[in-house]
């Protein structure tokens, strides 16, 4: 083999398509988490789009300001958006503590990761607790999967039972679809939050167990962080379409 001339074929290729380097510079698990979240976003999109389609298909719709107007323990009625505002704030706040945990992980600061993970878990529990109160309140009013306050009533009694929840015309079907979709979508979201809390607790235990310290990287915190922010992201949309519009 000649030592002085290197043929064209023997040159080391270093273009972007020549391999040898990570094209996305992301760890495998993080890419897979992203792909899972993209698919999950499609599921939530389908739910919310169906909600929109139902709204377009009904001549009238329930008035969210009239359904959600209580602050548990403070005001029974007349306060729309306040309680759900609190829930939104809790979730955004827990998203921030999650980024702070990820940031602490980058600096390999175990104590800070533990602190911020604990706050995140606390925020998640507070959110699920508020969700439970909201569900209970609605259930007491007569809304549930497949039923609304007028279920089982006939004629004018239907309109009377549903009048408090409508500003425009009253429709039994609209109230029913609203109840079904509210419990399905917030239920699916609450399920995601619960899973997120569980994952956060697992990652917190692994942190306390020095697993990441031994591994030398807190990448796992980033991965559950992605999931947790996604849950917050979905809530931003649920909040807009159920409570604001």
């Amino acid at each position, binding site marked *: 083999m000649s030592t002085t001339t290197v043929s064209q074929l023997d040159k080391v290729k270093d273009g972007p398509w020549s391999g040898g380097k*990570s*094209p*996305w*510079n*992301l*760890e495998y698990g993080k*890419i897979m988490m*992203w792909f899972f979240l*993209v698919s999950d*976003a*499609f599921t939530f*999109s*389908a739910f919310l*789009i169906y909600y*929109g*389609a*139902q709204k*377009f*298909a*009904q*001549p*009238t719709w329930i008035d969210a*300001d009239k359904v959600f107007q209580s602050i548990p323990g403070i005001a029974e009625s007349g306060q*729309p*958006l306040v309680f759900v*505002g609190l829930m*939104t*704030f809790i979730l*955004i*706040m827990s*998203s*921030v503590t*999650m*980024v*702070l945990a990820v*940031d602490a992980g*980058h600096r390999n600061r175990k104590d800070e990761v533990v602190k911020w993970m604990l706050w995140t878990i606390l925020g998640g529990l507070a959110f699920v607790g508020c969700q439970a109160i909201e569900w209970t309140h609605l259930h007491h009013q007569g809304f549930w999967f497949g039923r609304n306050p007028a279920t089982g009533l006939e004629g*004018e009694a*239907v309109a009377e039972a*549903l*009048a408090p929840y409508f*500003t*425009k*015309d*009253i*429709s*039994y*079907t609209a109230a029913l679809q609203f109840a079904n979709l509210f419990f399905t979508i917030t239920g699916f979201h609450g399920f995601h939050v619960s899973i997120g809390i569980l994952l956060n607790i697992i990652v917190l235990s692994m942190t306390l167990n020095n697993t990441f310290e031994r591994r030398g*990287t807190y990448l796992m915190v*980033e991965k559950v*962080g992605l999931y947790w*922010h*996604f849950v*917050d*992201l979905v809530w*931003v*949309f649920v909040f*807009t379409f159920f409570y*604001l*519009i």
Partner: protein
Amino acid sequence: MSNHHENIATAHDHHDHGGMDKKGIWRIFFVLLALTALEFLIALGFVHHWGIIQKGMFVNVIYIALTLLKAYYIIAYFMHLKFEKSSFIVTASVGFIFIVYFIVLMLIEGDFLLYHLQEHPLFPNN
């Protein structure tokens, strides 16, 4: 494999996190808080309390725009997508073209059903 992990982790540490230190995180938090506060100001103040704006298409468009803006801040900064390679940003987001199409499709469908599928009576609300 573990070697591979470490390579990526260290490469990551060195140049990818410039944009998001603690100060940056709190800045994004206040942006999200301000956008949410604006939504509440519109919903509770302008629409509910003072009655300056009527519920309807106009205010809904504002809500959706604010929501998409909040989504952008969460995805770009909290989920760190803005700082990933552009090919990954495209990979993660290009599929949502189908969601846009799906929205258009289902709203047209819903509008069609409005005039063709009314089984239950409507009661005027006095």
